[in-house]
């Protein structure tokens, strides 16, 4: 199998989707820009033209509504937002319209829309160019939220999103772009709503999302050297959550640490812990559950603060050690 970068796999997925189906369009801010979207859209405008690859003005609200209206009318648009921070302007068409439409109108039309929201943070960008707001969207009924973490999954999940009959937020992280992995050349789908076990272990379950899957994997390596055997679960979809996979892992390891790039309160980590709290696995816990998230603070600009704000493998290693050490 070929090895390629995450961004290469994403770019290949876009090429194949646009090539295979004329109902697929790509619309959003900066899809032809040299810097908005990294190398993810390279070659698309040249190949598919400006009618199907539409670089829009800065009008997040109306462009998102337009993508919803195009989806209602039979297209399968991929709507790109270069930063989740900018998507607050687009909350109304997503929450009030796309996510409600199928239920509210009695199971008639649905909105087959992929909302590709990019997390782009670090580099002293500050509070309005750093956010990971996936949990806000995961709260909405009628909207699914996926968070690919590897080159294989980004390609397969994007295809599943485009052929999903409902709106999906596809959360993409620029820190994943250089990561390499195996990617089949032909198209394939990775199902929405199914997680995967990245590493099996018996002492503690780490559930990590998106970029932090890789930091958690590094932490697991370090902990293995200390004799702590980590099971690493990557949910890939945060709504609907693959709760069965997480519950069975925690039943086995009896410990849970959740690592998520969102804020602490009311976040994806909270939901995962609540899922265990309501399940039979809670009775078998050997230690209190732990979450590693961003603090409840806006992102700082200064690099001297960023290193405390964004979590990495060392933070994970330290916290997991505490959870396991106190109870082993």
């Amino acid at each position: 199998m070929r090895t390629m970068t995450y961004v290469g796999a994403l770019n290949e997925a876009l090429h194949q989707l646009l090539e295979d189906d004329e109902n697929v369009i790509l619309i959003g801010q900066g899809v032809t820009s040299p810097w908005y979207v990294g190398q993810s859209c390279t070659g698309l405008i040249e190949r598919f033209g400006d009618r199907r690859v539409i670089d829009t003005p800065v009008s997040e609200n109306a462009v998102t509504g337009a993508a919803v209206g195009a989806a209602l009318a039979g297209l399968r648009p991929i709507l790109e937002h270069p930063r989740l921070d900018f998507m607050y302007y687009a909350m109304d068409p997503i929450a009030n319209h796309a996510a409600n439409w199928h239920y509210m109108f009695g199971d008639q039309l649905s909105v087959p829309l992929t909302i590709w929201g990019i997390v782009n943070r670090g580099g002293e960008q500050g509070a309005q160019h750093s956010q990971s707001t996936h949990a806000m969207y995961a709260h909405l009924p009628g909207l699914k939220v996926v968070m690919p973490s590897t080159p294989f999954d980004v390609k397969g999940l994007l295809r599943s999103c485009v052929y999903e009959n409902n709106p999906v937020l596809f959360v993409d992280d620029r820190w994943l772009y250089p990561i390499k992995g195996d990617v089949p050349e032909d198209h394939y789908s990775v199902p929405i709503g199914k997680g995967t076990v990245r590493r099996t272990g018996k002492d503690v379950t780490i559930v990590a999302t998106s970029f932090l899957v890789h930091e958690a994997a590094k932490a697991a390596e370090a902990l293995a050297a200390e004799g702590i055997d980590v099971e690493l679960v990557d949910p890939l979809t945060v709504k609907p959550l693959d709760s069965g996979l997480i519950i069975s892992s925690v039943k086995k390891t009896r410990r849970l640490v959740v690592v998520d790039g969102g804020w602490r309160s009311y976040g994806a980590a909270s939901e995962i812990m609540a899922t265990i709290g309501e399940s039979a696995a809670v009775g078998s816990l050997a230690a209190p559950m732990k979450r590693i998230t961003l603090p409840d603070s806006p992102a700082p600009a200064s690099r001297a603060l960023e290193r405390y704000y964004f979590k990495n493998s060392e933070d994970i290693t330290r916290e997991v050690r505490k959870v396991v050490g106190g109870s082993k």
Partner: protein
Amino acid sequence: MEPEKSHGGHGRDSEKIRMLRLHRMMVTIRATEDALADEVKKGEIGCPVHLYSGEEAVATGVCDVLRVDDWVYSSHRSHGHYLAKGGDLYRLMAEVYCRSEGCSKGRGGSMHLSSPEIGFPGSSAIVSGSISLAVGTALAFSLKKTNRVAATFFGDGAMGEGVMYESLNLAALYSLPLIFVCENNLYSTHLPISKCLANVRIAPKARAMGVPAITVDGNDVMKVQVAAKRAIAKARRGDGPAFIECLTYRHRGHVGPNYDVEKGLRSQEELDSWLKRCPICTLEKRMIGSNYATKKELAAITAEVNKLVLSTRQEAKRCGWPHGPEETEFRGVFRGSV
């Protein structure tokens, strides 16, 4: 180019047929709203109802020119648009009663009507909420190289929303087949337009964004229809969007069966002056003046429509409530897989 609609006949005959058709639709909308208003007063309808009485000429004039495969988006004041686009009366009434056979299965209520098979994807109760959706539908129609047209109805209150200006810009930028229809009824819920817009002239705002705009007497269905016909033909040719500002007035208050005079929001004099300019009376006078119908004939049509509306209301009221596992387990949040 396909014909707009088969109106049959020529000259006076075709004009008479057209006027009778427009008249029947306007009378149907008025009778429906009156019938629903009575039920709200009696407490038989619990869902908030925003009545279209007084504005019938706008929906009727525009939708008469649209084809069944053209799409219309609507607002919280949606009954008139739904009916004018060809929506089923029984399913509308059942929805306002929030019953199982309503057009949205009783999940939407008065503000959320839908009937995709007649080109009515849905009405949004968020002010300006469906404008951008109509932009996207027009984009899809254009990309698929059809000659279908999208239209969106909204009030003057929608001109206070930022997304309106973004949408006007996009429609003009991409030269989309989209008709913006502004029902300028002078009020945004309880607030008069002068307390909402520093510049109360609406059409120039659309022009400033690059969308050709005209202002018409929204209480004259023939004038609305002429403006709509021109705009729709142009959009169908691929020559871009249009904005039609229709000056009109809602007879009843923002929500419910009353008139907002009792709340001190409008004066009786103002209301009376607009009741004299009722769009149905205006059309009837013209029909009688042109010898297309007698007063007696028009009264007979109105009586016949009223009877139908009242019997449909009875039927809708007898319809059951949504229940059973499918509804009470709140299924339908997502559509199933391909």
